[in-house]
């Protein structure tokens, strides 16, 4: 596969390491009262869609950016690639 890196253009997927569902960005607060339940859901309950999937890829043999890649799991078509840092901020993560 070819992943169109937002900064570096098209790069072979062999340069990347796959992690999984982009929802891993949404890490719960470990000090919250219901943290145990929320971490269970966060870590173990994932969707496995046949179709569009937002997933985390790491450009290990490149600029070390984590990317959120929107990929169709049936066709491997990639429709969107974003820097995970930007996605994380947009989803309210900060310090």
């Amino acid at each position, binding site marked *: 596969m070819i992943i169109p890196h937002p*900064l*570096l*253009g098209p790069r*072979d997927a*062999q*340069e990347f390491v796959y992690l999984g569902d982009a929802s891993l960005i949404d890490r719960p607060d470990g000090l919250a009262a219901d943290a145990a339940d929320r971490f269970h859901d966060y870590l173990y309950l994932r969707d496995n869609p046949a179709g569009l999937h937002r997933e985390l890829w790491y450009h*290990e*043999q*490149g*600029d*070390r*950016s984590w990317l959120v890649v929107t990929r169709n799991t049936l066709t491997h078509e990639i429709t969107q690639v974003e*820097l995970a*840092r930007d996605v994380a901020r947009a989803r309210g993560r900060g310090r």
Partner: protein
Amino acid sequence: MPEHRLAPLTALGHPDPMVVTVGPVTLAEHTDIALASLAARRGREGDVAAAAQAIGLPLPGPGRHAAGPVWSAFWLGPDQWMVEAAFQTHEDIVAVLRPAFGTAASITEQTDAWVRFDLAGDDLAAAFERLCALDVRSMQPGDASRTVIEHLGTFVIRGRGGITVLGPRSAARSLHHALVTALRSAF
């Protein structure tokens, strides 16, 4: 630099850099460049740009290398560069850079983390197409990219007269073997 009694070895394990010629190409180990990573601290990107400008350090954009009279640099990642200077005069490169950037940047010595090979000659792409997935034929002088050569994370930098490869120092011999093998295959 203060005098000390320790003699350096090159990454290939010799007192002097190794130069080999394969067909029209010269492959030379290069030991006289000091390296440091420079990363802008959060919110200090402007200060870093200003400080760099003040000392004549170019900070190129993604996928690029820029050369200056004393300082050169290539892009590593967002707000992060690898800075180059002559080893002879800048061996303790962090100590030289830090006063210029103060608390605006994180600076880390990288000199001996890397082995550097310079290749000079015509049609180097014929060898590089056997080494890495980069479209070396289309690379312009100043293009710089990290990629994989024989499982090793390396930087490939296109210069005016040739190509520079930076690879992990501990695997210098393996990388050298890969480069020589590709050159023999291509030429």
